[in-house]
């Protein structure tokens, strides 16, 4: 018997509504999920120059990500060591130092305390080595994607991503210039649990023609994904839905941007066809006919490939999420085509997106439907497609049909294990027990 058996069954077929609504579970998630895993912070293209910074979060904790004068990437907790105010307050910028507005304490780009104006007035020497911003102990990047982790002992990022890298390359290593993330994020508040948007983009292909029926019912793209698609679990907790085009498919059917508003755009299609030889050279023959749809990386980063959007589900309580969403695009692509690709993001997704409005509302309704009484003995059903997943000869990870919910079962099994392990560790730790007794 483990702590969470009454919330997630051993096979993860049955999950309690409380997993999405209980504040006590959310408190455990902040400690054992957000405090223990690699969390996406920013993309290198957002801070290209020395002195650039961008704001991010690990769970609810505000983080400053900077490019130092040493040209290295640093991440610190955005809270002054004197009275705790955030010292960086705009979405992005370029600076030499962060100055706390309250008493003027200033910190350099690595988070070290530079000056406290009161030091001179008092004629004292502060112990500056111990009064810097708290550093995020581990910061690593993969193809420009910057992740940070509060746990200094975490495995290297590349191991953590595992075979997910093979799929991420399809967006971030498609051409020599890589990908860039442009502009400040679109942010909006959703009354739902943070795991729900992640789940959706781990591989929930099945909701498309129903929730988005007004636009997608009977569409050729839904037909393509249902015929040629797989839900892949490259590593437990991560997921990706892909279309693997047949070897004899036409070049036009294999390229990027044969989706959405650019489906029939001659300029875009011609450009992508020209580029496809380079894609095949970089990614190989299998990935040259791979068209991903959606990705999630444990615990809270997602990507929509065809719609060129990277998003983070920021938790703000058991029933509140702040969704941050960016546009990401191949850096080498000419601006005129970039602008056309951008509409595949803004028309469909983001706070003004014709599909996203339906997702946001469904996720809000999911919270409303779960935050109720008298049904604790009746679990939500996550068992679709059990046992049907298999190894695929060409695609790394476990592959199931697009209706197989193995991606979400793998996610919740990992989630359950991490919370249980974390709680067990704390139970065994006398220091932590002493702290708890104090509180």
């Amino acid at each position, binding site marked *: 018997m483990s702590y969470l058996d009454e919330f997630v069954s051993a096979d993860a077929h049955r999950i309690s509504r409380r997993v999405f609504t209980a504040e006590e579970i959310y408190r455990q998630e902040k400690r054992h999920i957000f405090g223990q895993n690699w969390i996406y912070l920013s993309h290198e293209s957002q801070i290209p120059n020395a002195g650039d910074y961008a704001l991010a979060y690990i769970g609810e904790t505000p983080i400053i990500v900077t490019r130092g004068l040493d040209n290295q990437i640093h991440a610190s907790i955005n809270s002054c060591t004197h009275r705790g105010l955030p010292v960086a307050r705009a979405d992005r910028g370029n600076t030499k130092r962060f100055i706390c507005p309250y008493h003027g304490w200033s910190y350099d780009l690595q988070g070290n305390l530079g000056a406290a104006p009161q030091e001179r007035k008092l004629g004292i020497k502060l112990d500056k080595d111990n009064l810097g911003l708290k550093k995020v102990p581990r910061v690593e990047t993969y193809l420009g994607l910057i992740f940070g982790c509060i746990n200094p002992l975490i495995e290297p990022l590349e191991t953590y991503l595992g075979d997910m890298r093979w799929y991420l390359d399809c967006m971030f290593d498609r051409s020599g210039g890589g990908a860039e993330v442009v502009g400040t994020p679109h942010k909006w508040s959703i009354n739902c649990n943070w795991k729900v948007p992640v789940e959706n983009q781990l591989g929930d292909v099945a909701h498309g023609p129903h929730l988005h029926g007004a636009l997608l019912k009977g569409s050729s793209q839904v037909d393509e994904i249902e015929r040629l698609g797989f839900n892949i679990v490259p590593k437990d907790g991560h997921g990706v839905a892909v279309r693997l085009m047949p070897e004899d498919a036409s070049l036009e059917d294999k390229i990027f941007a044969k989706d959405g508003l650019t489906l029939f755009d001659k300029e875009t299609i011609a450009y992508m066809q020209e580029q496809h030889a380079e894609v095949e050279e970089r990614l190989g023959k299998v990935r040259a006919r791979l068209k991903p749809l959606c990705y999630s990386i444990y615990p809270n980063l997602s990507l929509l490939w065809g719609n060129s959007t990277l998003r983070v589900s920021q938790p703000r309580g058991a029933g509140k999420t702040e969704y941050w969403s960016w*546009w990401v695009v191949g850096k080498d692509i000419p601006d005129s085509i970039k602008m056309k690709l951008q509409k595949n993001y803004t028309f469909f997704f983001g706070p003004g997106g014709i599909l996203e409005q339906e997702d946001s509302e469904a996720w809000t309704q999911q919270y409303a439907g779960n935050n109720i009484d008298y049904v604790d003995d009746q679990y939500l059903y996550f068992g679709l497609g059990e046992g049907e997943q298999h190894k695929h000869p060409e695609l790394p990870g476990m592959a199931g049909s697009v209706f197989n919910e193995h991606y979400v079962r793998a996610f919740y099994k990992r989630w359950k294990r991490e919370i249980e392990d974390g709680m067990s560790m704390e139970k065994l730790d006398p220091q932590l027990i002493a702290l708890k007794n104090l509180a």
Partner: protein
Amino acid sequence: MKAVNNLKTVHQIQQFYYREARMLDERQFQSWIDLLAPGIEYTMPNRSNCGVDIKLKNKEEILNIDQELSTGLQPHIRDDNLMTLTFRANRPTSGLSMTDNPLTRTRRSISNIEIYKHGHKTFKVYNNVNMSYSKYEKDNHQYNFQRQDVLQVIDGGLKILQRKIIIEWNVITAPTLAMIL
């Protein structure tokens, strides 16, 4: 910019906005499409949480709104043309739109209408919109935004040639900005 002082023109443009607001509140979205010029550019920039540029200190420019708004390759929240607006207008009548079933209830008030001469047969019009939005039983929200429009006279009638919507939110706390605003 030269203000329009002809009271008949001012009256016609005010009436145009009140009629448009009622049309949208009465959900006549497909009729609303007829108010658009064929080359309509309909945008809503993203509004960042923006620091000031200290090099501009003591100048009013330091507080300029444009520096907060997405520009160039930076993605707007909305970037529509006649085709995409037509998709949006037709969606609620499909019977398959879950965000329009049950129906969404809105009430728009239009104020602060300022009218300037723009170019040949076009007017630049600033106006503010206050909209109450209600969904399900009690999901009630208040929207407030500015519209910077260019209206064009086509065949004796007014059509919207440009609409740029300026919002105050950085984190959007309303349910969606995907509807016709």
